[in-house]
Protein backbone atom coordinates (compact mmCIF):
# COMPACT_ATOMS: atom_id res chain seq x y z
CA UNK A 1 0.00 0.00 0.00
CA UNK A 2 1.35 3.41 -0.84
CA UNK A 3 1.23 6.39 1.44
CA UNK A 4 -1.31 8.96 0.34
CA UNK A 5 -0.05 12.51 0.52
CA UNK A 6 -2.41 15.32 -0.22
CA UNK A 7 -0.85 18.37 -1.89
CA UNK A 8 -1.60 20.39 1.21
CA UNK A 9 0.44 18.05 3.38
CA UNK A 10 3.55 18.36 1.20
CA UNK A 11 6.18 20.44 2.91
CA UNK A 12 6.50 23.60 0.86
CA UNK A 13 9.13 25.18 3.05
CA UNK A 14 12.75 24.87 2.08
CA UNK A 15 13.93 21.34 2.63
CA UNK A 16 17.22 20.88 4.40
CA UNK A 17 18.60 19.22 1.29
CA UNK A 18 17.90 21.49 -1.67
CA UNK A 19 19.75 22.43 -4.83
CA UNK A 20 22.37 25.08 -4.18
CA UNK A 21 21.51 28.45 -5.64
CA UNK A 22 24.32 28.16 -8.10
CA UNK A 23 24.76 27.11 -11.72
CA UNK A 24 24.52 23.52 -12.88
CA UNK A 25 24.78 21.74 -16.21
CA UNK A 26 22.95 18.93 -17.94
CA UNK A 27 24.88 15.68 -17.50
CA UNK A 28 25.90 14.12 -20.81
CA UNK A 29 27.49 10.67 -21.26
CA UNK A 30 30.41 12.15 -23.22
CA UNK A 31 31.39 14.06 -20.07
CA UNK A 32 31.01 11.24 -17.50
CA UNK A 33 34.67 10.33 -17.11
CA UNK A 34 35.94 13.91 -17.35
CA UNK A 35 33.60 14.99 -14.55
CA UNK A 36 34.78 12.15 -12.32
CA UNK A 37 38.40 12.98 -13.06
CA UNK A 38 38.07 16.72 -12.47
CA UNK A 39 35.31 16.93 -9.82
CA UNK A 40 34.35 20.40 -11.09
CA UNK A 41 33.11 23.01 -8.65
CA UNK A 42 29.51 23.30 -9.88
CA UNK A 43 26.19 23.72 -8.13
CA UNK A 44 24.54 20.57 -9.46
CA UNK A 45 23.95 18.26 -12.39
CA UNK A 46 20.63 17.56 -14.06
CA UNK A 47 19.62 14.41 -15.95
CA UNK A 48 16.62 13.52 -18.06
CA UNK A 49 14.86 10.84 -16.05
CA UNK A 50 13.97 8.69 -19.08
CA UNK A 51 17.62 8.19 -20.07
CA UNK A 52 18.16 6.36 -16.79
CA UNK A 53 15.08 4.13 -16.85
CA UNK A 54 17.23 1.20 -17.96
CA UNK A 55 18.13 -1.89 -15.96
CA UNK A 56 21.86 -1.35 -15.52
CA UNK A 57 25.06 -0.51 -17.35
CA UNK A 58 27.36 2.50 -17.64
CA UNK A 59 24.66 5.17 -17.27
CA UNK A 60 23.79 4.00 -13.77
CA UNK A 61 27.43 3.36 -12.93
CA UNK A 62 28.49 6.91 -13.73
CA UNK A 63 25.40 8.65 -12.40
CA UNK A 64 25.83 6.82 -9.10
CA UNK A 65 29.43 7.92 -8.76
CA UNK A 66 28.73 11.50 -9.82
CA UNK A 67 25.79 11.66 -7.39
CA UNK A 68 28.14 10.78 -4.53
CA UNK A 69 29.93 14.08 -5.08
CA UNK A 70 27.32 16.44 -6.56
CA UNK A 71 23.77 17.66 -6.03
CA UNK A 72 21.28 16.32 -8.57
CA UNK A 73 18.11 17.42 -10.30
CA UNK A 74 16.00 14.84 -12.15
CA UNK A 75 14.06 16.33 -15.04
CA UNK A 76 11.30 14.24 -16.60
CA UNK A 77 10.56 14.57 -20.30
CA UNK A 78 8.03 11.78 -20.78
CA UNK A 79 5.28 11.98 -18.18
CA UNK A 80 2.89 13.79 -20.54
CA UNK A 81 1.16 15.75 -17.80
CA UNK A 82 -0.99 17.60 -20.31
CA UNK A 83 -2.28 14.45 -22.04
CA UNK A 84 -6.01 13.88 -22.53
CA UNK A 85 -5.53 10.30 -21.39
CA UNK A 86 -4.52 9.05 -17.95
CA UNK A 87 -0.93 9.17 -16.75
CA UNK A 88 1.13 6.05 -17.42
CA UNK A 89 1.19 4.44 -13.97
CA UNK A 90 4.05 2.11 -14.83
CA UNK A 91 6.14 5.07 -15.95
CA UNK A 92 5.29 6.94 -12.76
CA UNK A 93 6.31 3.88 -10.73
CA UNK A 94 9.61 3.72 -12.63
CA UNK A 95 10.22 7.41 -11.88
CA UNK A 96 9.50 6.80 -8.20
CA UNK A 97 12.08 4.00 -8.17
CA UNK A 98 14.64 6.24 -9.91
CA UNK A 99 14.09 9.01 -7.37
CA UNK A 100 14.38 6.53 -4.49
CA UNK A 101 17.69 5.30 -5.92
CA UNK A 102 19.38 8.66 -6.55
CA UNK A 103 17.59 10.87 -4.00
CA UNK A 104 17.81 14.02 -6.14
CA UNK A 105 17.27 17.41 -4.51
CA UNK A 106 14.73 18.29 -7.20
CA UNK A 107 12.26 16.67 -9.58
CA UNK A 108 10.64 18.57 -12.43
CA UNK A 109 8.44 17.98 -15.47
CA UNK A 110 6.79 19.98 -18.25
CA UNK A 111 3.51 21.75 -18.92
CA UNK A 112 3.04 19.81 -22.16
CA UNK A 113 1.88 16.48 -23.55
CA UNK A 114 3.96 13.92 -25.42
CA UNK A 115 2.01 10.65 -25.33
CA UNK A 116 -1.28 9.91 -27.03
CA UNK A 117 -3.06 6.54 -27.01
CA UNK A 118 0.14 4.78 -26.01
CA UNK A 119 2.28 6.44 -28.68
CA UNK A 120 5.19 8.53 -27.41
CA UNK A 121 5.85 11.43 -29.79
CA UNK A 122 9.13 12.59 -28.22
CA UNK A 123 8.27 16.27 -28.29
CA UNK A 124 6.79 18.66 -25.76
CA UNK A 125 3.47 19.46 -27.38
CA UNK A 126 1.33 22.50 -26.63
CA UNK A 127 -1.92 22.71 -24.70
CA UNK A 128 -4.89 25.03 -25.03
CA UNK A 129 -5.30 27.00 -21.82
CA UNK A 130 -8.93 26.35 -20.83
CA UNK A 131 -10.83 25.43 -17.70
CA UNK A 132 -10.93 21.80 -18.85
CA UNK A 133 -7.19 21.53 -19.50
CA UNK A 134 -6.50 23.32 -16.22
CA UNK A 135 -8.49 20.71 -14.28
CA UNK A 136 -6.79 17.87 -16.14
CA UNK A 137 -3.26 19.21 -15.61
CA UNK A 138 -3.99 19.77 -11.91
CA UNK A 139 -5.39 16.24 -11.51
CA UNK A 140 -2.25 14.81 -13.11
CA UNK A 141 0.10 16.92 -11.00
CA UNK A 142 -1.79 15.86 -7.85
CA UNK A 143 -1.31 12.26 -8.94
CA UNK A 144 2.42 12.75 -9.58
CA UNK A 145 3.01 14.50 -6.26
CA UNK A 146 0.99 11.85 -4.40
CA UNK A 147 2.86 8.97 -5.99
CA UNK A 148 6.31 10.53 -5.65
CA UNK A 149 5.58 11.86 -2.17
CA UNK A 150 7.24 15.15 -3.00
CA UNK A 151 6.60 18.53 -4.52
CA UNK A 152 7.45 18.78 -8.20
CA UNK A 153 8.39 21.77 -10.29
CA UNK A 154 6.46 22.43 -13.49
CA UNK A 155 8.33 23.98 -16.42
CA UNK A 156 6.76 26.69 -18.58
CA UNK A 157 6.84 25.58 -22.23
CA UNK A 158 8.35 26.88 -25.45
CA UNK A 159 5.54 26.91 -28.03
CA UNK A 160 5.11 27.71 -31.71
CA UNK A 161 1.31 27.84 -31.90
CA UNK A 162 -1.62 29.06 -29.85
CA UNK A 163 -5.20 27.80 -29.69
CA UNK A 164 -8.34 29.74 -30.49
CA UNK A 165 -10.15 28.04 -27.61
CA UNK A 166 -7.69 29.28 -24.95
CA UNK A 167 -9.36 31.37 -22.26
CA UNK A 168 -6.30 31.90 -20.05
CA UNK A 169 -2.98 33.52 -20.86
CA UNK A 170 -0.05 31.26 -20.12
CA UNK A 171 1.12 33.09 -16.97
CA UNK A 172 -2.42 33.06 -15.55
CA UNK A 173 -2.83 29.37 -16.36
CA UNK A 174 0.46 28.49 -14.67
CA UNK A 175 -0.37 30.68 -11.69
CA UNK A 176 -3.62 28.77 -11.25
CA UNK A 177 -1.89 25.37 -11.56
CA UNK A 178 0.61 26.38 -8.89
CA UNK A 179 -2.13 27.69 -6.63
CA UNK A 180 -4.30 24.57 -6.94
CA UNK A 181 -1.62 21.89 -6.75
CA UNK A 182 1.09 23.47 -4.63
CA UNK A 183 3.69 22.54 -7.22
CA UNK A 184 6.64 24.84 -7.84
CA UNK A 185 7.74 26.56 -11.03
CA UNK A 186 10.77 25.63 -13.07
CA UNK A 187 11.24 28.97 -14.75
CA UNK A 188 12.73 28.35 -18.17
CA UNK A 189 13.87 31.84 -19.11
CA UNK A 190 14.71 30.80 -22.66
CA UNK A 191 11.19 29.38 -23.03
CA UNK A 192 9.68 32.65 -21.82
CA UNK A 193 11.72 34.49 -24.42
CA UNK A 194 10.98 31.99 -27.21
CA UNK A 195 7.22 31.77 -26.55
CA UNK A 196 6.76 35.50 -26.09
CA UNK A 197 8.64 36.25 -29.31
CA UNK A 198 6.66 33.58 -31.16
CA UNK A 199 3.32 34.93 -29.93
CA UNK A 200 3.96 38.67 -30.00
CA UNK A 201 4.11 39.19 -26.23
CA UNK A 202 6.50 41.21 -24.09
CA UNK A 203 8.84 38.72 -22.36
CA UNK A 204 9.40 40.92 -19.35
CA UNK A 205 5.65 41.35 -18.78
CA UNK A 206 5.13 37.58 -19.11
CA UNK A 207 7.93 36.94 -16.70
CA UNK A 208 6.52 39.35 -14.14
CA UNK A 209 3.05 37.74 -14.44
CA UNK A 210 4.32 34.25 -13.57
CA UNK A 211 4.06 32.96 -9.99
CA UNK A 212 7.66 33.87 -9.23
CA UNK A 213 7.41 33.13 -5.51
CA UNK A 214 7.06 29.44 -6.51
CA UNK A 215 10.28 29.32 -8.57
CA UNK A 216 12.60 26.53 -7.45
CA UNK A 217 14.96 26.38 -10.41
CA UNK A 218 15.77 28.25 -13.61
CA UNK A 219 16.67 26.83 -17.03
CA UNK A 220 18.77 28.59 -19.66
CA UNK A 221 19.33 27.25 -23.17
CA UNK A 222 20.14 28.29 -26.70
CA UNK A 223 17.53 28.75 -29.41
CA UNK A 224 17.55 28.87 -33.21
CA UNK A 225 16.13 31.87 -35.06
CA UNK A 226 13.81 31.30 -38.00
CA UNK A 227 10.87 33.20 -39.45
CA UNK A 228 7.19 32.46 -39.88
CA UNK A 229 5.13 32.94 -43.05
CA UNK A 230 4.64 36.66 -42.23
CA UNK A 231 8.38 37.20 -41.87
CA UNK A 232 8.18 37.60 -38.09
CA UNK A 233 10.75 35.81 -35.96
CA UNK A 234 9.93 32.23 -35.04
CA UNK A 235 12.35 31.01 -32.40
CA UNK A 236 13.01 27.30 -32.00
CA UNK A 237 13.87 25.92 -28.56
CA UNK A 238 16.77 23.87 -29.90
CA UNK A 239 19.12 23.47 -26.89
CA UNK A 240 21.99 23.10 -29.36
CA UNK A 241 24.01 26.27 -28.90
CA UNK A 242 25.05 28.97 -26.45
CA UNK A 243 22.44 31.00 -24.56
CA UNK A 244 21.41 34.11 -26.55
CA UNK A 245 22.38 37.56 -25.24
CA UNK A 246 18.71 38.60 -25.00
CA UNK A 247 18.07 35.58 -22.78
CA UNK A 248 21.00 36.47 -20.52
CA UNK A 249 19.47 39.93 -20.14
CA UNK A 250 16.06 38.46 -19.31
CA UNK A 251 17.75 36.07 -16.85
CA UNK A 252 19.32 38.98 -14.97
CA UNK A 253 15.89 40.64 -14.82
CA UNK A 254 14.33 37.39 -13.61
CA UNK A 255 16.85 37.08 -10.79
CA UNK A 256 16.00 40.61 -9.66
CA UNK A 257 12.45 39.32 -9.11
CA UNK A 258 13.17 35.82 -7.77
CA UNK A 259 16.49 36.24 -5.98
CA UNK A 260 19.26 33.75 -6.66
CA UNK A 261 17.97 30.39 -7.96
CA UNK A 262 19.61 27.12 -8.96
CA UNK A 263 20.26 27.70 -12.66
CA UNK A 264 20.78 25.02 -15.28
CA UNK A 265 22.59 25.37 -18.58
CA UNK A 266 20.76 23.01 -20.97
CA UNK A 267 22.75 21.95 -24.01
CA UNK A 268 21.36 18.72 -25.47
CA UNK A 269 22.28 18.81 -29.17
CA UNK A 270 25.73 19.47 -30.70
CA UNK A 271 27.04 18.90 -27.18
CA UNK A 272 30.16 21.08 -26.85
CA UNK A 273 33.45 20.29 -25.14
CA UNK A 274 33.29 20.36 -21.36
CA UNK A 275 35.14 23.69 -21.11
CA UNK A 276 32.51 25.43 -23.27
CA UNK A 277 29.72 24.10 -21.08
CA UNK A 278 31.58 25.10 -17.96
CA UNK A 279 32.11 28.63 -19.34
CA UNK A 280 28.32 29.01 -19.79
CA UNK A 281 27.80 27.88 -16.21
CA UNK A 282 30.44 30.34 -14.98
CA UNK A 283 28.65 33.12 -16.84
CA UNK A 284 25.40 32.21 -15.05
CA UNK A 285 27.25 32.19 -11.73
CA UNK A 286 28.55 35.69 -12.42
CA UNK A 287 24.96 36.89 -12.89
CA UNK A 288 23.89 35.04 -9.74
CA UNK A 289 26.71 36.67 -7.75
CA UNK A 290 25.78 40.12 -9.01
CA UNK A 291 22.12 39.78 -7.99
CA UNK A 292 22.61 38.16 -4.61
CA UNK A 293 26.14 38.67 -3.35
CA UNK A 294 25.36 37.74 0.24
CA UNK A 295 23.40 34.59 -0.47
CA UNK A 296 26.06 33.63 -2.98
CA UNK A 297 28.81 34.01 -0.43
CA UNK A 298 27.00 31.90 2.16
CA UNK A 299 26.23 29.11 -0.29
CA UNK A 300 29.63 29.12 -1.84
CA UNK A 301 31.65 29.24 1.35
CA UNK A 302 29.34 26.80 3.14
Amino acid sequence: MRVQTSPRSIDHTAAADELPRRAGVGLKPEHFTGILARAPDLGFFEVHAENYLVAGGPFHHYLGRIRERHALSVHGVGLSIGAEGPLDRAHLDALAALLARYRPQQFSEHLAWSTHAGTFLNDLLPLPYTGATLRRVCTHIDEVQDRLGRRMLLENPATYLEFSESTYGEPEFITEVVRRTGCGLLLDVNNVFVSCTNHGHDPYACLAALPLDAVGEIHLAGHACEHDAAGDPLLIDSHDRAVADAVWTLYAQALELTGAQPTLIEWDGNVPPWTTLLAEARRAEAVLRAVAPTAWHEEHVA
Partner: protein
Amino acid sequence: MNQSAFAHALLDAARPVPDGLVAWNGSRVDLRFAVYRNNVVASLTDALTDAYPVVQRLVGATFFRAMAHEWLVDHPPRSPVLAQYGEGFAAFIAGFAPAASVPYLSDVARLEWAYVQSFHAADATPLAPAALAPALAAPELLPALRVALHPSVRTLASDYAIVSLWGAHQAERIDALPDPNRAEAALLLRPALLVHVVAIDAGTHALVCALQRGAPLGEAAQAGADADTGFDLMQALAVLIRYQAFREIRP
Protein backbone atom coordinates in the same frame (compact mmCIF):
# COMPACT_ATOMS: atom_id res chain seq x y z
CA MET B 1 -8.21 20.87 -29.70
CA ASN B 2 -8.30 17.15 -30.08
CA GLN B 3 -4.97 15.50 -29.26
CA SER B 4 -5.78 12.53 -31.49
CA ALA B 5 -5.97 14.75 -34.60
CA PHE B 6 -2.83 16.60 -33.50
CA ALA B 7 -0.89 13.37 -32.91
CA HIS B 8 -1.90 11.82 -36.22
CA ALA B 9 -1.06 14.95 -38.19
CA LEU B 10 2.42 14.99 -36.61
CA LEU B 11 3.33 11.60 -38.05
CA ASP B 12 1.43 11.86 -41.32
CA ALA B 13 2.38 14.97 -43.26
CA ALA B 14 -0.42 14.26 -45.75
CA ARG B 15 -3.02 15.01 -43.08
CA PRO B 16 -4.29 18.56 -42.66
CA VAL B 17 -3.15 20.48 -39.59
CA PRO B 18 -5.62 20.27 -36.68
CA ASP B 19 -8.43 22.81 -36.30
CA GLY B 20 -8.29 25.64 -33.82
CA LEU B 21 -4.63 26.63 -34.19
CA VAL B 22 -3.80 30.32 -34.37
CA ALA B 23 -0.79 32.56 -34.82
CA TRP B 24 -0.75 36.02 -33.20
CA ASN B 25 0.02 37.76 -36.49
CA GLY B 26 -2.46 35.77 -38.56
CA SER B 27 0.35 33.99 -40.40
CA ARG B 28 -0.06 30.47 -41.79
CA VAL B 29 -0.34 27.95 -38.97
CA ASP B 30 0.78 25.02 -41.12
CA LEU B 31 4.32 26.41 -41.22
CA ARG B 32 4.30 26.67 -37.43
CA PHE B 33 2.81 23.20 -37.06
CA ALA B 34 5.69 21.99 -39.25
CA VAL B 35 8.09 22.85 -36.41
CA TYR B 36 6.42 20.15 -34.30
CA ARG B 37 6.34 17.70 -37.21
CA ASN B 38 10.03 18.26 -37.75
CA ASN B 39 10.86 17.93 -34.04
CA VAL B 40 9.09 14.57 -33.83
CA VAL B 41 10.60 13.06 -36.97
CA ALA B 42 14.10 14.50 -36.48
CA SER B 43 14.33 13.49 -32.82
CA LEU B 44 13.14 9.93 -33.51
CA THR B 45 15.52 9.68 -36.45
CA ASP B 46 18.32 10.81 -34.13
CA ALA B 47 17.30 8.11 -31.65
CA LEU B 48 17.63 5.47 -34.39
CA THR B 49 20.98 6.93 -35.45
CA ASP B 50 22.19 6.54 -31.86
CA ALA B 51 21.11 2.89 -31.84
CA TYR B 52 22.35 2.00 -35.34
CA PRO B 53 25.56 3.96 -36.01
CA VAL B 54 27.22 1.25 -38.16
CA VAL B 55 24.11 0.81 -40.29
CA GLN B 56 24.27 4.56 -40.88
CA ARG B 57 27.95 4.39 -41.86
CA LEU B 58 27.25 1.53 -44.24
CA VAL B 59 24.60 3.39 -46.23
CA GLY B 60 25.41 7.05 -45.52
CA ALA B 61 23.46 9.58 -43.47
CA THR B 62 21.07 10.67 -46.22
CA PHE B 63 19.98 7.15 -47.11
CA PHE B 64 19.78 6.18 -43.43
CA ARG B 65 17.54 9.11 -42.52
CA ALA B 66 15.20 8.41 -45.42
CA MET B 67 15.02 4.73 -44.46
CA ALA B 68 14.47 5.60 -40.78
CA HIS B 69 11.69 7.99 -41.72
CA GLU B 70 9.90 5.28 -43.73
CA TRP B 71 9.92 3.03 -40.68
CA LEU B 72 9.32 5.40 -37.80
CA VAL B 73 6.13 7.01 -39.10
CA ASP B 74 4.49 3.60 -38.84
CA HIS B 75 6.39 2.54 -35.70
CA PRO B 76 6.56 5.45 -33.29
CA PRO B 77 7.78 4.63 -29.75
CA ARG B 78 5.39 2.99 -27.31
CA SER B 79 7.41 4.20 -24.33
CA PRO B 80 9.18 7.43 -23.36
CA VAL B 81 12.33 5.39 -22.67
CA LEU B 82 14.08 5.88 -26.00
CA ALA B 83 16.90 3.46 -25.11
CA GLN B 84 14.32 0.81 -25.93
CA TYR B 85 13.27 2.40 -29.21
CA GLY B 86 14.21 0.73 -32.49
CA GLU B 87 13.28 -2.90 -32.01
CA GLY B 88 12.00 -4.21 -35.31
CA PHE B 89 14.03 -1.82 -37.45
CA ALA B 90 16.29 -4.69 -38.59
CA ALA B 91 13.30 -6.70 -39.82
CA PHE B 92 12.09 -3.67 -41.74
CA ILE B 93 15.55 -3.22 -43.32
CA ALA B 94 15.49 -6.86 -44.45
CA GLY B 95 12.45 -6.08 -46.59
CA PHE B 96 13.42 -2.55 -47.62
CA ALA B 97 13.95 -2.85 -51.37
CA PRO B 98 16.26 0.17 -51.83
CA ALA B 99 18.72 -1.47 -49.37
CA ALA B 100 18.72 -4.83 -51.16
CA SER B 101 22.18 -4.17 -52.61
CA VAL B 102 23.58 -4.37 -49.06
CA PRO B 103 22.28 -7.84 -48.12
CA TYR B 104 24.05 -7.91 -44.74
CA LEU B 105 22.58 -4.56 -43.59
CA SER B 106 19.71 -6.13 -41.69
CA ASP B 107 21.96 -8.53 -39.78
CA VAL B 108 24.35 -5.71 -38.84
CA ALA B 109 21.27 -3.90 -37.52
CA ARG B 110 20.36 -6.97 -35.46
CA LEU B 111 23.86 -6.93 -34.00
CA GLU B 112 23.57 -3.24 -33.13
CA TRP B 113 20.21 -3.83 -31.45
CA ALA B 114 21.79 -6.66 -29.41
CA TYR B 115 24.58 -4.22 -28.48
CA VAL B 116 22.06 -1.70 -27.11
CA GLN B 117 20.32 -4.45 -25.11
CA SER B 118 23.62 -5.66 -23.68
CA PHE B 119 24.75 -2.11 -22.87
CA HIS B 120 21.67 -1.34 -20.75
CA ALA B 121 21.15 -4.85 -19.33
CA ALA B 122 21.00 -5.49 -15.60
CA ASP B 123 24.31 -5.46 -13.75
CA ALA B 124 25.68 -8.62 -12.16
CA THR B 125 29.04 -9.75 -10.86
CA PRO B 126 30.42 -12.40 -13.23
CA LEU B 127 31.52 -15.71 -11.80
CA ALA B 128 35.22 -15.66 -10.96
CA PRO B 129 37.15 -18.03 -13.28
CA ALA B 130 38.52 -19.80 -10.20
CA ALA B 131 35.00 -20.80 -9.18
CA LEU B 132 34.78 -22.90 -12.34
CA ALA B 133 37.96 -24.88 -11.73
CA PRO B 134 36.39 -27.62 -9.54
CA ALA B 135 33.65 -28.22 -12.09
CA LEU B 136 36.10 -28.46 -14.95
CA ALA B 137 38.29 -30.84 -12.94
CA ALA B 138 35.49 -33.40 -12.78
CA PRO B 139 34.39 -33.88 -16.40
CA GLU B 140 31.96 -36.64 -15.45
CA LEU B 141 29.87 -34.08 -13.58
CA LEU B 142 29.83 -31.52 -16.40
CA PRO B 143 26.72 -32.78 -18.26
CA ALA B 144 24.42 -32.19 -15.30
CA LEU B 145 25.73 -28.69 -14.51
CA ARG B 146 23.29 -25.81 -14.78
CA VAL B 147 24.83 -22.55 -15.87
CA ALA B 148 23.29 -19.10 -15.48
CA LEU B 149 24.67 -16.65 -18.01
CA HIS B 150 25.38 -13.02 -17.28
CA PRO B 151 22.21 -10.92 -17.90
CA SER B 152 24.02 -8.91 -20.58
CA VAL B 153 24.70 -11.95 -22.80
CA ARG B 154 23.18 -11.74 -26.29
CA THR B 155 23.91 -13.89 -29.34
CA LEU B 156 23.05 -13.92 -33.00
CA ALA B 157 24.13 -15.82 -36.08
CA SER B 158 24.31 -14.59 -39.65
CA ASP B 159 25.15 -15.78 -43.14
CA TYR B 160 27.40 -12.71 -43.33
CA ALA B 161 30.56 -11.58 -41.55
CA ILE B 162 28.64 -9.30 -39.19
CA VAL B 163 31.23 -9.21 -36.40
CA SER B 164 34.06 -8.37 -38.81
CA LEU B 165 31.92 -5.75 -40.58
CA TRP B 166 30.85 -4.22 -37.28
CA GLY B 167 34.42 -4.24 -36.00
CA ALA B 168 35.82 -2.58 -39.12
CA HIS B 169 33.34 0.28 -38.64
CA GLN B 170 34.49 1.03 -35.11
CA ALA B 171 37.63 2.64 -36.52
CA GLU B 172 37.48 6.25 -37.65
CA ARG B 173 39.06 5.36 -40.97
CA ILE B 174 38.21 2.20 -42.87
CA ASP B 175 40.99 1.05 -45.17
CA ALA B 176 39.53 -2.21 -46.43
CA LEU B 177 36.22 -3.91 -45.75
CA PRO B 178 36.26 -7.58 -44.77
CA ASP B 179 34.69 -10.05 -47.16
CA PRO B 180 31.04 -9.94 -46.09
CA ASN B 181 30.11 -13.33 -47.58
CA ARG B 182 31.33 -15.45 -44.72
CA ALA B 183 28.98 -16.72 -42.01
CA GLU B 184 29.70 -15.40 -38.52
CA ALA B 185 28.00 -15.67 -35.16
CA ALA B 186 28.30 -13.05 -32.45
CA LEU B 187 28.47 -13.17 -28.69
CA LEU B 188 27.81 -9.86 -26.96
CA LEU B 189 28.20 -9.30 -23.26
CA ARG B 190 29.03 -6.60 -20.77
CA PRO B 191 30.63 -8.04 -17.64
CA ALA B 192 31.52 -4.52 -16.43
CA LEU B 193 31.26 -1.24 -18.35
CA LEU B 194 32.31 -2.26 -21.86
CA VAL B 195 30.27 -4.36 -24.26
CA HIS B 196 32.40 -7.09 -25.85
CA VAL B 197 31.44 -8.18 -29.36
CA VAL B 198 33.08 -11.52 -30.04
CA ALA B 199 33.00 -13.76 -33.12
CA ILE B 200 32.12 -17.31 -32.09
CA ASP B 201 31.75 -20.49 -34.11
CA ALA B 202 28.38 -22.06 -34.89
CA GLY B 203 28.82 -24.72 -32.19
CA THR B 204 29.51 -22.18 -29.45
CA HIS B 205 26.54 -20.16 -30.66
CA ALA B 206 24.28 -23.21 -30.36
CA LEU B 207 25.73 -23.98 -26.90
CA VAL B 208 25.02 -20.46 -25.60
CA CYS B 209 21.51 -20.45 -27.08
CA ALA B 210 20.76 -23.75 -25.33
CA LEU B 211 22.15 -22.43 -22.01
CA GLN B 212 19.98 -19.33 -22.39
CA ARG B 213 16.97 -21.63 -22.72
CA GLY B 214 17.97 -23.20 -19.40
CA ALA B 215 19.33 -26.49 -20.74
CA PRO B 216 21.89 -28.33 -18.56
CA LEU B 217 25.44 -28.26 -19.89
CA GLY B 218 25.33 -31.78 -21.36
CA GLU B 219 22.27 -31.02 -23.45
CA ALA B 220 23.72 -27.65 -24.50
CA ALA B 221 26.99 -29.34 -25.54
CA GLN B 222 24.99 -31.75 -27.67
CA ALA B 223 23.31 -28.78 -29.36
CA GLY B 224 26.79 -27.44 -30.06
CA ALA B 225 27.93 -30.73 -31.57
CA ASP B 226 24.76 -30.93 -33.68
CA ALA B 227 25.43 -27.47 -35.08
CA ASP B 228 29.13 -28.01 -35.74
CA THR B 229 30.83 -31.36 -36.24
CA GLY B 230 34.16 -29.89 -35.09
CA PHE B 231 32.65 -28.52 -31.86
CA ASP B 232 35.01 -28.64 -28.87
CA LEU B 233 33.23 -28.07 -25.55
CA MET B 234 36.39 -27.22 -23.60
CA GLN B 235 37.42 -24.65 -26.18
CA ALA B 236 33.94 -23.12 -26.16
CA LEU B 237 33.92 -22.95 -22.35
CA ALA B 238 37.35 -21.33 -22.42
CA VAL B 239 36.00 -18.52 -24.61
CA LEU B 240 32.98 -18.02 -22.33
CA ILE B 241 35.20 -18.01 -19.23
CA ARG B 242 37.64 -15.55 -20.78
CA TYR B 243 34.83 -13.09 -21.53
CA GLN B 244 33.16 -13.66 -18.13
CA ALA B 245 29.90 -14.91 -19.59
CA PHE B 246 28.92 -16.96 -16.53
CA ARG B 247 27.08 -15.62 -13.57
CA GLU B 248 26.48 -18.80 -11.63
CA ILE B 249 26.93 -22.59 -11.87
CA ARG B 250 24.95 -25.17 -9.98
CA PRO B 251 25.51 -28.94 -9.90
